[in-house]
């Protein structure tokens, strides 16, 4: 099996008496979608925060593309090739959709310290941004103000920004939330193709999407990985059914 592009080794994180992560070992390999599921409060968001660089684990290490990034900032991890989408959209709401997407292109091309020339007219960045917007189906909204987008469209915009980074790893925190049935199906189809470009660590509550997409699933309960396995292994696991999936 190929070497993991993203790996957590025994990471632990506590907030006072609350154990948010305990000896979590997780990896993400090229070409796969690895879903992370679990009930609310299981520690999924804390784990994503640690992987993206927003929180430093108490112990253990995080490796990105073979490099130990445990102590590195969010900025360094993004530059190394980690693209993240947020559970609650983190966007420049006053700016246009195109301007938001340009941020990704700007990060990728390292042009954030260019002081002259309009950002929206810079040809390389603009074509990167427009291409990403076309792929997620938001190109018609390029000139709209981001605050005017629906919740689902904001999720699509988050993905468009991640695409402009041309990353080595995607970390997506509930990208289906608020999309509706049709939107979810479209995004499922889109993510299915995206795994060839870069593997995806997918945190998601939409089980139809998870079962349709995931090559492997890890179930997180009370800050611990209950099981990592294929869809069938996870679905048939009694502990998982009890803790999360129910008896459907």
């Amino acid at each position, binding site marked *: 099996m190929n070497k993991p592009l993203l790996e957590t080794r025994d990471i632990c994180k506590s907030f006072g008496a609350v154990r948010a992560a305990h000896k979590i070992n997780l990896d993400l390999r090229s070409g796969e979608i690895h879903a992370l599921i679990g009930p609310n409060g299981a520690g999924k968001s804390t784990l994503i925060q640690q992987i*993206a*660089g*927003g929180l430093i684990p108490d112990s253990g290490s995080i490796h990105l593309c073979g490099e130990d990034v445990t102590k590195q*900032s*969010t*900025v360094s991890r*993004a*530059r190394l090739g980690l*693209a*993240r989408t*947020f559970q609650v959209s*983190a*966007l*420049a*709401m*006053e*700016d*246009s959709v*195109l*301007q*938001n997407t*340009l*941020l*990704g292109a*700007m*990060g*990728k091309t*390292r*042009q*954030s*310290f*260019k*002081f*002259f*020339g*309009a*950002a*929206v007219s*810079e040809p390389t*960045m603009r074509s990167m941004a427009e291409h990403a917007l076309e792929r997620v189906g938001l190109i018609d909204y390029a*000139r*709209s*103000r981001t605050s005017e987008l629906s919740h689902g469209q904001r999720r699509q915009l988050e993905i468009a*920004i991640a695409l*402009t*980074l041309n990353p080595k790893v995607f970390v997506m925190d509930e990208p289906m939330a608020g999309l509706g049935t049709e939107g979810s199906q479209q995004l499922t189809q889109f993510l299915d193709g995206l795994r060839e470009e870069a593997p995806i660590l997918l945190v998601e509550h939409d089980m139809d999407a998870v079962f349709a997409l995931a090559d492997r699933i890890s179930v997180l309960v009370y800050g611990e990985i209950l099981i990592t396995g294929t869809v069938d292994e996870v679905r048939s696991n009694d502990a998982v059914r009890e803790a999360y999936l129910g008896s459907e």
Partner: protein
Amino acid sequence: MSRESIFDCVLILCLAAVPIWAHFAEEPFIITLATRAAIFAIAGIGLNLVLGQGGLVSLGHATFFGLGGYAMGILASHAQTYMPLSEWPILIEGTKSMPVIWVVALLASGIAALLIGALSLRTSGVYFIMITLAFGQMFYYFAVSWSAYGGDDGLSIYLRNDFPGLNTLDPIQFFLIVFVWLLVVWIFTATLIRSPFGLALNASRQSTERVETVGINPYHLRLTAFVISGMITGLAGALFADLNRFISPSMFSWQTSGEIMVFVILGGVARRSGPILGAVVFIALEHFLGGLSDYWHIYLGALLLLVVLFARGGLIGMLLGRERVHE
């Protein structure tokens, strides 16, 4: 051409037209008022870069305004008394040359902004406000006790500094210098706001996480903006000192920082011409209301309150509505 661009042009043309009229009508005081407004507008444009685009409420911009002023005062006073600033290890003489003074003012305020910004920008919110205020007060009390340059009483410069080819004591010619600086600074910041740097800075105000996750360091963006902003405000300080031919510790005071902020809020935070309109309205109120009552600030306070409560985006926001995206 958008409505906002037309408004900007009209505003700037009016600011130029009034002193030209006053020159022919032989009303030199009106020219001085316009010069004052233009200088305050430059200071406001400087602050607007960090306040409007970066979302950084600096209550210490008087530091840079004062440093610019003292750069002028110190150099000019030594030139006036023919006493060098230092004789060892190198001889540094005073100067009456405006361009040299501007360079020194820009450098001094830029270096101070770099040091103050590097420390202050590690904090945010109310802590940032307090730490910038503290730096301002530090400089203020230093200036008060700096007896070599007038201490609490300030320092007068007998003659306005020189600019090649112009008679700077002629009000309209000095206004011209200030007005050209205003245009340069306005065009520079308007360009900067539209540039990739401006877009990233503005986004960092709205969502720090967003900027970080695309691999852009918001601290570097803010520090750069803070330095540019400090330099612009420092330049305004040097021009203000030259206008009055006088410097005093009050240039460093927190009231000065507050006034610069008033220009920005009154005109419109983050609007490229907000500080110009704000400074013009402030000077107009100071002149007309100041003539009616010594307590004119109470009317200014009431106006500011109305603007903050009812006109989101300041007077420009009230006149033109919300700024369009892609402008």
